[in-house]
């Protein structure tokens, strides 16, 4: 038994050669990292993917594969795509709020008297805020 085997070769129960494609990215002190990736992608797919990349990019690739594997294990239906969907929705919501706020700024800049007279007539009127917001819809 070679005590210096990487986590991948330990998991796969094989000898860890000096040029093992996995060993720089799956150290033996973190067996769960390779186990997660193996569960989702399989060892040969990961090996092929890493081999196709220049060596200076393989660490980032291994890290992103691990992250995506974790998302998929946590959410077997949507994986990390669920988070992408959530972020796209957040962008849509914030863009809408920003557009409304910018429209209100533009309106108030152009019509300060209209805003002023409405304020004078409608202070204390609970329906005023609805009316004001309808100007910008």
């Amino acid at each position: 038994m070679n005590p210096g085997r990487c986590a991948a070769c330990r998991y796969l129960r094989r000898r860890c050669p000096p040029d093992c494609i996995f060993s720089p990215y799956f150290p033996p002190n973190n067996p769960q990292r390779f186990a997660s990736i193996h569960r989702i992608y399989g060892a040969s797919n990961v090996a092929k993917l890493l081999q196709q990349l220049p060596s200076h990019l393989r660490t980032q690739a291994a890290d992103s594969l691990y992250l995506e594997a974790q998302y998929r294990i946590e959410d077997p239906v949507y994986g990390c795509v669920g988070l992408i969907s959530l972020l796209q929705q957040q962008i849509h919501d914030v863009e809408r709020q920003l557009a409304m706020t910018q429209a209100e700024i533009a309106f108030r800049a152009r019509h300060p008297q209209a805003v002023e007279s409405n304020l004078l007539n409608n202070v204390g009127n609970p329906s005023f805020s609805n009316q004001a917001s309808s100007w910008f819809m």
Partner: protein
Amino acid sequence: MGGSSPCASCKLLRRRCAKDCIFAPYFPSDDPHKFAIVHRVFGASNVSKMLQELPVQQRADAVNSLVYEANARVRDPVYGCVGAISYLENQVSQLQMQLAVAQTEMLCIRMQQESALPMPMPTQMQQDDKSFLAATNNLDNISQYLNFASSSSSSNVIQDPSALKRESLWT
């Protein structure tokens, strides 16, 4: 098989397409690329295991998300979907900063316009005095807005996967 053509998976894997083939409902024969890309990234046996572990009604969404991820990984072999997540998180951060700045500007305009109003009627004096003082004290709120806008930073891509919300991209 009953004469029907094999699904895209069984065609690619060159095997008989059984009646209860787990891939057949989701990988029709007229779209061979869909299974090819999923097989390339995840492998047929891993996809099969993942689908078997899910209730039938969730499998279509699972396949669609796997196809999405596989496409992202083929387009960007280094970062895959994680690159898209990082980009979107930056966008959210920037938009939230822009919104904070716009809301601060809005607050300034409102205060300017409200402080330019004539003095209110005596019967309403007490109530409106309080609002005026509150508006004046909002100068502190403005600086809080500005602090928020300058201190908000893009969140770390390494999110807690347990915070995921299930949203469908294709409904």
